């Protein structure tokens, strides 16, 4: 069993956010996984900051 298969099995056994975590696992298989994850991380952070700014504007 490969490492990724092992992790996939563990994810399925735990049954929490299975699809999302397996999708992340698929990214980890890619050779440019670091770049992909870093881009996703920045994208999510940017969307949080943008939504927060919008909310601050609405509340203000």
């Amino acid at each position: 069993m490969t490492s990724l298969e092992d992790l996939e099995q563990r994810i399925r056994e735990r049954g929490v956010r299975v699809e999302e975590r397996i999708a992340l696992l698929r990214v980890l298989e890619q050779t440019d996984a670091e770049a992909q994850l870093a881009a996703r991380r920045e994208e999510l952070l940017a969307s949080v900051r943008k939504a927060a700014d919008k909310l601050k504007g609405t509340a203000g």
Partner: protein
Amino acid sequence: MRPIALKLRNFRGWREGQIALDRPLVVVIGKNACGKSSTLNAIEWCLFGKEIEKKASGIAERADWEASHRGASAPTEVALTLATESGNATITRRRDAEAAARAEDELTVDLADGRKLAGSEAQAWIRESRLPDWETWRRACCQHQEVSRARLTDASDRSLILSSLLGLDDFDRLNGVLREQQPRKLIELLDSELAELEKVVLYRLSQPSEDLFESERRLEALGVERARISPALSLEIARAASGRAQDLALRLRVTIEVPSFPSDADEAAMRKWADAWIAQVRKESKLSDRLSAATKKRARIAAELEQLEPSEARWRESKETLALELRERGDDATRKRLGLEAAKTLQDAEQRLREENRTLSLLREAAGVLRESQRFDQCPVCTSGVPGLLARLEQTLEQGGGGKIPALSAERDQARERATTLEAGAGALTRLVDSETQSRKSYESRRENLSALLTPGRLRDGLDLLAAAREEDEALAKEISELETLLAGLEPELEAHRGDAERLRELNKWRVAARRAQQRADLSASPEWKAFQEALDAAACFAADLDVLGAMAREAQEERSSSREEEVNRSLGVYTRLIAGESAGLDVRVRVKRTPKGLSYDIEDAGGGRALSILNQASLNAISLALLFAQAEERARGGLPTWLVLDDPEQSLDDEHKQGLARAIERVAANSAVVVALAPGKLSEWLIARSALPRRTIQLGPRDAKLGVRIESQEER
């Protein structure tokens, strides 16, 4: 998956050739520079292309490495045929002779079902087939001519090799990637974003509730029951204030437009009117000014009245005095006539006195002349003789000085006194006239002042000034009393209005606070709030997933390392003993250490000491090869495609070690395809003569200048 065949064209020493790899063990034998290494390199170039052609590949001799045959104008091409579960597949890598250094190779895969994959699809097929990537290959599948010691003495490389041997390299890579993302840091960043938002937004959101509460408390203090507070209350208060304002305007007899407020549509207009009303009333009614003016006027009338009677008395007195004077001393003409007469009398008296004195003086002079001349009877002027002249002169002088002169002087003095008295009487009369005139004017001026203070029409016919003034005073007293009453009544009215205005202002604040509080309630259900929550959840889930995956990877890695450590060490021990011999006592083990950052690996001797630093070259080679074989065995056990490519593995080994190596190769080839390139010698002899495995022996002859690498003979068994 096993290799079947290798086709080469214009690859390094090769012009064109084909080698069958269809046996578990393929031995390529040739003397130096026959093309053994080129043959093995071709397999790697076909699989990994440029990865193996640079210094960063980890293989020192590959720096500035040229894949193409020197002088060839045709493309370089290597095709590796593999046996797969679905039939044979051929991976072909091709590069044009004039291709630029950065140009991509042409990579294709021909599948058994006739499909031909190219480029990224071909790469994907290689990945999906679980063929080793370059890093795995470098550590676990090949033994090159570089010194083995370097692979073991470099701690980083050694750790990678041991990780690969334990089958934990994937976990290490995963952990590295996941650690790189710093999921905890991401969570911290999200926490700080949330904290910032809480500081800014939630504070702002909570503020309206506090404002609302505070506003309600102030309204209660202003006499508004909490239960009555509502937007409609503004209209109620404004209407009540408007009604009172209209009554007040009537009472004050001022004309001010008071709005009626039919609805609460314009709440701002209500507040504006209420705020402006007090000043407007004060301005329009002028109660204070009117009171002040009436009070001042009354005071001035009183003052004038107070002064008028004395003034009149003074005038009458001076008038009477003048009349009396005139009666007693005549009028002005009489006085002038008497004065002239007295002056004339005085003048005459003085004249007579002067004449008498001159006469006496002449007589004295004549008497003097007579006495000097001693001619007492001769006239000093005409020389006529007058007897007793001197005596008569002296008598006359004596009589004049002793009687007439004093009488004339007395007469003159009497005339002077009368003249003086008359003159003084004339001055007194003038003064009395002036005094009478002045007091009369003063009296008249006061009357005029008083008249001017009276309301026009007050001094009507038949009413004297004093009566009119008293009537005016009474009217003013009445007006002052009324104004004072109005003023006293106005302040409570204005105070009540001021309270209404304040309540209206506070109600407006309450409405704003209530609206903001409502907005807060609305905001929780707003798209912005939802979008923020979703974004936050997505980022937090991403971070949590990364963190969980990292934890799972570490957990799986530790579990696997626990189960694999003994197994791997057993394999390593077997191969080490096979190569180095039982008698060498070379007992090394892989040791896994758990650190806060993850697992670390090293090689220790049986006593737990550092083994590699004291070993000789042969022992290092033996351990390096044992590690390689153990990895191959482990990969094969894990069901992964496994080959071993060994390029001159017998370096530094004596015959005993070579014999052991032959046994080790035979053992590993039972589970993993092995391609080994050797110079003719003991190892090749033992492999060919003693191995019971199916094998192929390829003998390379001396390289031909035109044809390149040349296969001299092939043998299969």
